């Protein structure tokens, strides 16, 4: 049996292998996904994002368990940062998901960002497809611990859950642009701590100012560790799913995301093509030195590099 048939037959070893091949940019992997692409489109993708230590892994674990009780097959992609200095990484999200490891209906994969900014790894979108083909009904994507502007998750998730904790800052933090704008559901984790009500209030006040009145993100207080109110959080996620399905937003968002994905692929390929040529004839080094010496400006250098492709 080839790797495609094995994955369709539910072989975890083959599924894991294909994800590695995609992470390692093996040409063959892309060909396999081309063949299997028509089998994708069945999984619903839930993004879980938030700052480091907010409780993303534990919450993902708890939500996944609830969906397992309903009989759904679950995939989890957990992203952690890769060192920009050594290329190494500690991928430690699994520690919070120990109970799920031996569950036949769960597949968990840890991924290093491998130089990608934005909170995900470059291969995340491909890995989602693999888990979709593998037959997962719901796929959780857990981002790296984010700051204020890592919003790539919104390009891949159908519903984004933003995990916050009490006392992370004043009400100005809640009205800032960036990550606070991409949430479809807010989870205030560790809500047994002081300040949870205040945090909820600040987010609600900020939501009052939204111009989109069709859909208002729910703000749910939970405790992942104590397994408290996870049902309510999951209901809010599924409510957002229903809303999207009902209004056609789901299709619109997916088409927007495909557009972005294809453009990103084009960008990456073009850069690779330019880099290959520029390195071959040492043009990039030459240009950099000329720009440094003020013999050329960066804008002319850019044009020369682009011309490599056009000629």
């Amino acid at each position: 049996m080839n790797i495609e048939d094995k994955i369709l037959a539910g072989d975890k070893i083959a599924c894991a292998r294909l994800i590695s091949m995609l992470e390692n940019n093996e040409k063959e992997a892309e060909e396999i996904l081309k063949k299997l692409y028509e089998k994708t489109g069945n999984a619903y993708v839930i993004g879980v994002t938030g700052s480091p230590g907010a409780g993303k892994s534990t919450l993902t674990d708890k939500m996944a368990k609830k969906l397992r009780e309903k009989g759904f097959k679950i995939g989890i992609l957990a992203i952690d940062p890769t060192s920009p200095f050594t290329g190494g990484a500690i991928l430690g999200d699994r520690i919070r998901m120990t109970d799920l490891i031996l569950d036949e209906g769960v597949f968990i994969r840890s991924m290093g960002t491998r130089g990608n900014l934005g909170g995900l790894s470059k291969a995340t979108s491909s890995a989602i497809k693999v888990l979709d083909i593998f037959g997962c009904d719901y796929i959780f994507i857990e981002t790296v611990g984010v700051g204020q502007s890592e919003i790539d998750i919104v390009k891949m998730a159908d519903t984004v859950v933003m995990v916050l904790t009490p006392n992370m800052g004043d009400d100005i933090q809640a009205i800032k642009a960036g990550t606070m704008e991409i949430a479809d559901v807010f989870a205030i984790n560790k809500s047994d701590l002081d300040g949870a009500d205040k945090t909820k209030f600040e987010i609600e006040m900020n939501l009052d100012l939204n111009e989109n009145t069709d859909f208002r993100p729910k703000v749910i207080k939970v405790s992942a560790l104590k397994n408290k109110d996870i049902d309510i959080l999951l209901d809010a996620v599924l409510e957002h799913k229903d809303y999207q399905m009902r209004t056609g937003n789901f299709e619109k968002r997916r088409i927007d995301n495909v557009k972005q994905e294809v453009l990103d692929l084009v960008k990456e390929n073009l850069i690779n093509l330019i880099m290959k040529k520029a390195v071959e004839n040492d043009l990039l080094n030459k240009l950099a030195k000329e720009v440094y010496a003020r013999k050329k400006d960066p804008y002319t250098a850019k044009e020369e590099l682009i011309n490599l492709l056009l000629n």
Partner: protein
Amino acid sequence: MERPIRVLVAKPGLDGHDRGAKVIARALRDAGMEVIYTGLRQTPEQIVEAAIQEDVDVVAMSILSGAHNTLFPKVVNLLKERGVTDRLIVGGGVIPEDDIPFLISSGVEAIFTPGTSTKDVVEFIKTHVKRQ
């Protein structure tokens, strides 16, 4: 670009001491490897399942409870049962010299005892990893 070696660092059995495992995890990270750390008190079944889903090249186990003669070979055998034979399996911890030949003969390819330099562990993994 060269791909990073993926290593599962696991603590089988019931002892709760993972300082050593964390030091090793950090050293492997600094050597450019992707380390999946699974946490304490894992069963051999959990370790094997994680190794498969993570598609790791190396399974590195640390044990301080004395159960190494049971648990290490069990992981090797469970992997074999699943048809997975192309991974490097190593172990470490407080392990008596006398037990090492048995562990090696059961498929654990190296045993690192207290005092081992992290450089040696990195070097061993780099030179013995089985998959290209």
